[in-house]
């Protein structure tokens, strides 16, 4: 046996032992994290926001002193059951593919008479500054809990948005030459302790999409999908899109299409 082979063999043995140790450690960590998440699940502060959102939905507000009860989220005026799970969707009246947030803002403008600027000024909360949109989206989302995500994107406009979303998902850009797919296009990736879902598969996209909107304990707030995706872009060091930008709706359409068939578990709770 030559020296080089011995070296290789020893190296391999050490590597194997080390790798074995790491994976045992990994599964223990994963178990403990699962315990942590489980302990948070009962008593999700998002429930508080859901109650608030219900109140905002039926309260007469704005210059037109109207409630949102006639808002059509794609299932007909006032029909909330399953509406979130079937968005984004093409709407004839606006000739646009809209997600839950763009449609909600549309309703607040057309039914209640608010300006778009007024409605979107506080589109996410900060400590001490609550967001009506967060509360309403939490309430609307919960009305799809237990229902299957259903965005087949069969309408030509929806298919176009899904395609655009797919393009953005794989497009490398920004100072780090980053794309969504670098972190979310393969199995078994993680960042620090977080597993990163493969959003190109039904399983991965389903796991990711079914729990939104979600209470983020690190922020003490419910995050909507718009906030989630805009913040992903910030973290990828891309320029941040505007709230309700077509690029975000396109990504949502792509992801919801991939996740179609997955049962919603919302509102979620995350670290």
């Amino acid at each position, binding site marked *: 046996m030559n020296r080089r082979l011995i070296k290789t063999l020893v190296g391999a043995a050490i590597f194997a032992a080390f790798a074995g140790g790491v994976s045992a450690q990994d599964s223990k960590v994963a178990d403990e994290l699962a315990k942590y998440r489980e302990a948070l699940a*009962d*008593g*999700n*502060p998002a*429930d*508080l926001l859901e*109650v*608030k959102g219900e109140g905002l939905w039926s309260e007469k507000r704005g210059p037109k002193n109207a409630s949102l009860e006639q808002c059509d989220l794609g299932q007909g005026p006032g029909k909330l059951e399953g509406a979130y799970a079937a968005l984004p969707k093409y709407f004839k009246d606006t000739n646009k593919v809209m997600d839950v947030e763009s449609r909600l803002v549309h309703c607040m403008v057309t039914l209640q008479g608010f300006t778009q600027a007024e409605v979107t000024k506080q589109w996410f909360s900060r*400590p*001490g500054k609550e967001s009506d949109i967060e509360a309403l989206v939490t309430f609307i989302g919960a009305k799809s809990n237990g229902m299957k995500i259903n965005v087949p994107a069969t309408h030509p406009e929806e298919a176009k948005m899904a395609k655009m979303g797919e393009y953005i998902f794989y497009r490398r850009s920004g100072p780090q030459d980053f794309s969504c797919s670098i972190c979310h296009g393969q199995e078994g990736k993680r960042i620090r302790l977080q597993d990163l879902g493969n959003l190109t598969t039904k399983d991965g996209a389903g796991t990711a999409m079914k729990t939104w909107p979600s209470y983020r*304990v690190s922020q*003490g707030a419910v995050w909507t999908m718009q906030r989630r995706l805009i913040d992903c872009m910030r973290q990828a060091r891309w320029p941040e899109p505007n709230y309700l930008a077509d690029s975000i709706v396109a990504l949502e359409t792509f992801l919801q299409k991939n996740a179609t068939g997955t049962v919603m578990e919302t509102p979620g709770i995350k670290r």
Partner: protein
Amino acid sequence: MGNPMKIRAANKDGVTEVKVLVSHEMETGQRKDSAGAIVPAWFITELVAKHGDKVVLTSEFGPSVSKNPYLAFKFKGGAKGDKITVSWKDNKGDSRTDEAAIN
């Protein structure tokens, strides 16, 4: 003032389990805002739970209880339909009371 609490109470085999979610910032007084100024402490100091008019739990909180506090506890007794009342007050003198029936 503040937003409503969410109170759940369920009786099983003569023991009532109460779960309370409170809407509150629970600001520690150690955090700085974007301008670098300390955000003043603002947190619930006391929370009392009653079954009818009988106190079943008195809690004292410091600022290290998490934002939107959660509390779960059990007491012997209670029957379906009985009233559970939860009151809190914070270090700014604000307070709130909500109630729920035992399931």
